[in-house]
């Protein structure tokens, strides 16, 4: 069972993540968009969207810090366990609250505005549900256990297992002892990755950083051959007067 959960499932999800993106990129360029709805509702979005996105950047950065940097490294450069804990819990709480507030506003917007409700797709609903589940699990891990509870040092267990996935040496034993909230959050994270390529989240990979150094006006040639010229009305009139010349 633990092999299935902590080895097979992560790899299956990662495979879907990669294959899904390749498939969608090749077959659905037209659907590859942020699917903006600011045209239909701007007031709540003006507040909710920046909160959500900036919060998400912080949260992703925090996860990278916590999961990818080994505890031995931070200790080696003189950052004590306590300092690390203070930084991570403070940063995690602030960005987490931004993320929660932004997400709540964005979801509320989907309910409050009839215009938005009508353009919400099934995939959008799935995505919002998944995001909410992930955020609730993650925040309860950070706030309930690490901020107010006795604390849990995920850097010794979860992070090591997570890195192991990418070295192809995941150790399921590291995960079996983790609190349930952390277990669910880790599994949910991989399932979320599997969902990613099938939602509007693909727009993340199109972050337009190249805009910063591109020339302003883009020129491009026409693709494919030009169509045949259509006869002018004068030519049609002419042909009408001499029908023999046009008969085929």
């Amino acid at each position, binding site marked *: 069972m633990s092999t299935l959960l902590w080895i097979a499932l992560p790899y299956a999800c990662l495979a879907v993540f990669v294959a899904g993106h390749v498939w969608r990129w090749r077959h659905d360029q037209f659907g590859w968009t942020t699917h903006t709805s600011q045209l239909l509702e701007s007031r709540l979005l003006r507040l909710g969207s920046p909160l959500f996105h900036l919060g998400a950047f912080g949260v992703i950065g925090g996860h990278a810090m916590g999961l990818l940097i080994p505890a031995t490294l931070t200790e080696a450069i003189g950052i004590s366990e306590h300092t690390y804990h203070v930084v991570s819990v403070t940063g995690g709480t602030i960005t987490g609250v931004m993320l929660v507030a932004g997400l709540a506003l964005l979801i509320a917007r989907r309910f409050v505005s009839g215009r938005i409700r009508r353009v919400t797709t099934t995939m959008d609903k799935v995505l919002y549900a998944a995001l909410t589940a992930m955020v609730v699990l993650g925040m309860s891990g950070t706030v309930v256990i690490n901020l107010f509870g006795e604390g849990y040092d995920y850097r010794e267990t979860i992070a090591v297992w997570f890195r192991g996935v990418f070295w192809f040496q995941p150790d399921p034993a590291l995960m079996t002892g983790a609190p349930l909230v952390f277990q669910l959050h880790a599994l949910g994270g991989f399932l979320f990755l599997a969902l990613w390529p099938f939602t509007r989240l693909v727009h993340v990979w199109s972050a337009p950083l190249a805009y910063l150094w591109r020339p302003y006006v883009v020129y491009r040639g026409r693709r*494919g051959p*030009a169509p045949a010229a259509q006869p002018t009305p004068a030519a049609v009139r002419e042909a009408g007067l001499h029908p023999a010349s046009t008969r085929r």
Partner: protein
Amino acid sequence: MRIRAQVAMVMNLDKCIGCHTCSVTCKQTWTNREGTEYVWFNNVETKPGIGYPKHYEDQERWKGGWKLDGKGRLVLRSGGRVKRLSRIFANPDLPTIDDYYEPATFDKDILVNAPAGLTDTPVKKPYSALTGEPMKIEWGANWEDSLGGNTFAEDPNIARMPAEAAAKVKFEFEKTFMFHLPRICEHCLNPACVSACPSGAMYKREEDGIVLVDQDRCRGWRMCVSACPYKKVYVNHATGKAEKCTLCFPRIEAGQPTICSETCVGRLRYLGILWYDEDAVLAAASVPESELLDAQRAVFLDPFDESVQRAARDAGHPDEWIEAAQASPVWKLISEYRIALPLHPEYRTLPMVWYVPPLSPVLDAVGAAGRDDSDADDVFHTIQDLRIPVEYLASLFTAGDAEAAGGVLMKLAAMRSYMRARTLDGTVAQELLDGIGMTGAQVEAMYRLLAIAKYDERYVIPAAHAKDAAALEAQAAAQPDCSLDCEGGPGMGGEAAVERFHLVDAEEVRPGRPGLFSRRGDGRRGLTINPMRGRS
């Protein structure tokens, strides 16, 4: 010098009766789809008025177009690259759909299914096309027509005018001084929308200068919508992508006029090509406001100049295009007769749809002032004295230069009087010609072009395939050992290339394929754009 061809349009506003045939045929062709209910690639608005979308000309509010910064450099009014990306999560300058209008549909079934013998006539009610809820229609794409809405005083062009003049316009307006302004995408030489597109999905075509959105590369960052000062890029809320006037490129490529031009009842539209120097665009867009009009005119190259023809030939333009540029009615109206003016040159995008300003509201004002509107001398003086509505036209077409706007009106008035004398008693009014610095032959040619020009004089559009042929010849000359059947060679296409009207292969028409994820909550699909499907 980098010489390029631009397909440009001129509209003669004197002939526009505001019938909206252009708008309707355009909508039937391009935007009769879910997600584009509110979109009019071609709209006709009533001036003075706040337009569509509301107050779009107020760039303090929408931050569209370009401006000169403190050091005299050309910058987008909405800010630089970093600022734009920082606002990507929520664009503060984006109009919402209420700034356009809430599109409505009607329950026509109630009329169709009404039983016989009703004592009351059944009435169809409006429903929102966005929510399906019953709604009250309170605004539309030309709500201000015939004094509707009482919003003309909010017209940003009037707000910019001196208070005294603005009061006069208001006064004249109450005596129904108004005219219609049909607007399509300007296909600018210095397009702000293209410059603001973070994905690089928008582009200006090298062959004919048409500005397009690559539907496959648009990621829905919606910066083009706010950057365009004319608000002629729209969000399709069903697909989440930007869409805009295409200048009917499939028709232009085949040598046909756009749908709006083809169906224009007043025959007020002219289409043709212009040569311009791509390297001169930035400088022309960066001059002080008072020099903008002349700088924009100076970007166009004289098609009769032999050095220009040589440059065009060297750049691979076929003879057919060089001849078309000489026959271009647009060149004549803009550069030879100098009676066409750009819409809001102060936006610094170098728009490529120009307008012959309307004389009729001026003549009405001349009559109202007790002068003789058939006497050019009286008209001249009244135009000079009255300033109204010349000031207003100047704020639309010459960045506020009333002299330039008045000069064009004088030409039109002189032409009118000259032709009257010519027709009625066969005399040549030389003093009129001297007043406007044109020859009799020129005025008569101008009259013919404005009044009676036939289809192929109004639309001089060289087909795109000639350019392909020239490019292939150049390619064959450069690679003598390349067989004709090589990729891109004439041998590869054969009959298919000649017979096809489609621009791309059927499989390539992605927009026509309902995306797997474009299905909405109610099970309906997003867009189908290929108007020729099933015929390939």
